[in-house]
């Protein structure tokens, strides 16, 4: 019988020796004496919702310190947009927050429209609102499914994705793409709604309330869910404000701030809807805020559907910024010139700076845009909600159990593409 030699040490490829001294200042002194344990969570961990790495300092099961490490998904989107004309930049913004690409489009388009002073026809604004609310529903459904699966409720994910698929089908009808549609363009939207869009939306609004009721029945009073979420990850309102939180994460703490209500854009002031608010600022309140937002989105969609006419302008007719429709190219020399000009060099924007912000499903997406006087921006900067929320993760998790960390990460609804850009 051959004697198999037991290896005395791991092969070199598996040997990983980090320099613990690099962590001085990030973790407490107790970690250096071995009193607390350092544990690496992520970047490939399903409950970090992407590629977030968190270095945890643990005292038993309790979190002493959490050091988030981001940047794994940094793709230089802002840098890319600096070398693109304004209309092409829209395509890059889709890839930031990949669960709600249209909100990113909206922030960027609003900034461009502000910079060049371009008006958007009311019907185009209405189409945008319909898209944004559909996108909010789609994004909240992914959040709901993944948040529930993190906490062990497996079935919700399947139900949520079933409805999300219907929303994505509708977005595909509009833009030809399920997710990265780049449907919004400076001055309006890419093309008109298709004839079968409205009937599909009516159909969806008819059956969606039952689905939401189902989700609520599954979780709202579920004793395990309530035990895992109530009183966990409490954020006080003043701390939430100081740390720059926004969206449902801020509203879960009871701060009544929704950009759609407080600083309306794209005609949101014409809609009647409520802003759901939490009371305690814990995981459960943030969960309820988002669930109730699904109902509010449905309200907005119902109102928008009433007003949305089948035919009408869907983008500005300012030919200096928006290309003419295909049908004009055969008849008008002027149209050919505009078409050529806009698709080769694009339009020029002044050497000025603007800031535009929209309420995305996650919070405030702000777009800072600085023109050069030429056809490409000097600087684009996106303030993204996930970036701010992850930065406050140490604050949220200190003193909690490691199992609650998963609940907290899920409840602030982070998207790493949104964070790293």
């Amino acid at each position, binding site marked *: 019988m051959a004697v198999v030699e037991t290896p005395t040490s791991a092969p070199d490829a598996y040997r990983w020796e980090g320099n613990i001294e690099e962590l001085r*200042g*990030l973790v407490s002194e107790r970690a250096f004496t071995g009193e607390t344990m350092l544990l690496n969570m992520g970047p490939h961990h399903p409950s970090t919702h992407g590629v977030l790495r968190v270095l945890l300092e643990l005292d038993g099961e309790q979190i002493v310190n959490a050091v988030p490490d*981001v*940047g794994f998904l*940094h793709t*230089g989107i*802002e*840098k*890319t947009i*600096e*070398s693109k004309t304004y209309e092409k930049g829209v395509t890059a913004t889709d890839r930031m927050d990949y669960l709600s690409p249209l909100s990113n489009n909206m922030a960027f388009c609003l900034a461009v429209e*502000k*910079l060049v*002073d371009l008006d958007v026809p009311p019907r185009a604004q209405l189409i945008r609102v319909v898209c944004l609310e559909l996108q909010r529903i789609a994004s909240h459904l992914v959040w709901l499914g993944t948040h529930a699966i993190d906490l062990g409720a497996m079935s919700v994910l399947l139900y949520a994705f079933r409805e999300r698929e219907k929303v994505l089908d509708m977005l595909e009808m509009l833009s030809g793409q399920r997710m990265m549609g780049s449907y919004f363009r400076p001055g309006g939207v890419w093309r008109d709604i298709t004839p079968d869009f409205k009937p599909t939306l009516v159909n969806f609004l008819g059956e969606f309330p039952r689905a939401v009721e189902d989700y609520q029945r599954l979780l709202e009073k579920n004793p395990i869910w309530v035990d895992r979420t109530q009183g966990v990850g409490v954020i006080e309102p003043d701390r939430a*404000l*100081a*740390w*720059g*939180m926004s969206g449902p994460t801020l509203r879960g703490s009871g*701060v009544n*701030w929704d950009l759609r209500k*407080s*600083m309306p854009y794209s005609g949101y002031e014409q809609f009647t809807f409520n802003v759901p608010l939490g009371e305690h600022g814990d995981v459960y309140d943030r969960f309820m805020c988002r669930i109730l937002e699904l109902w509010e989105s449905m309200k907005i969609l119902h109102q928008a559907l009433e007003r949305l006419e089948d035919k009408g302008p869907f983008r500005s007719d300012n030919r200096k910024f928006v290309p003419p429709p295909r049908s004009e190219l055969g008849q008008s020399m002027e149209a050919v010139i505009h078409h050529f000009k806009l698709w080769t060099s694009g339009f020029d924007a002044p050497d*000025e*700076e*603007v*800031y535009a*912000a929209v309420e995305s499903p996650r919070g*405030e997406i*702000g777009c*800072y845009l*600085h023109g050069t006087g030429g056809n490409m921006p*000097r*600087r684009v*900067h996106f*303030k993204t909600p996930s*970036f*701010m929320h*992850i*930065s*406050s993760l140490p604050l949220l998790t200190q003193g909690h159990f490691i199992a609650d960390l998963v609940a907290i990460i899920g409840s602030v609804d982070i998207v790493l593409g949104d964070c*790293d*850009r």
Partner: protein
Amino acid sequence: MPDIAPARDAADALQAAMPEALLDCHSFRDETTLIVAPAQVVDVCRFLRDTPGLVYNFLSDISAVDYWPEQERPERFGICYHLLSMLYGRRLRVKIYVAEDESEAPTMTGVWPGANWLEREIFDLIGIRFSGHPDLRRILMPSEWDGHPHRRDYPLGYEQVQFSFNAEEIMKHKPFARE
């Protein structure tokens, strides 16, 4: 409901309280920009946050912009603090200019702790140091990265697409992206 002081104009209020800090005021498309002295930007922001009638309580964003290669501007970098007053529902931009040879600005983390990562991002991508920042490390780029990618003189690199006919040729100079 406590009494809410009537809204005041930020530029006027600042001019009255800290005239030496306010360098210029600029308005474009209903957005007001206050250009202030870099050394006093923290005090200015604290003043804007705490003064009744202004109450810019929320820091929306900090973005930095690189004006390279424009020669007529004295300073190369600009840093914009986008403040938001939730009480009065309005925004304000506070801007400072930073010269390339110092590349340093005071940190805003004492006023809004949320500025922490926003400043780290600027340090990482533009290369402006924030004095007094508690944890100034790179955030989006790897820690050993050389240079600051969002500077305007930093080239936009790309990699050639590999096909079977040119795969070997590309592998020879693989780690280096083309400029």
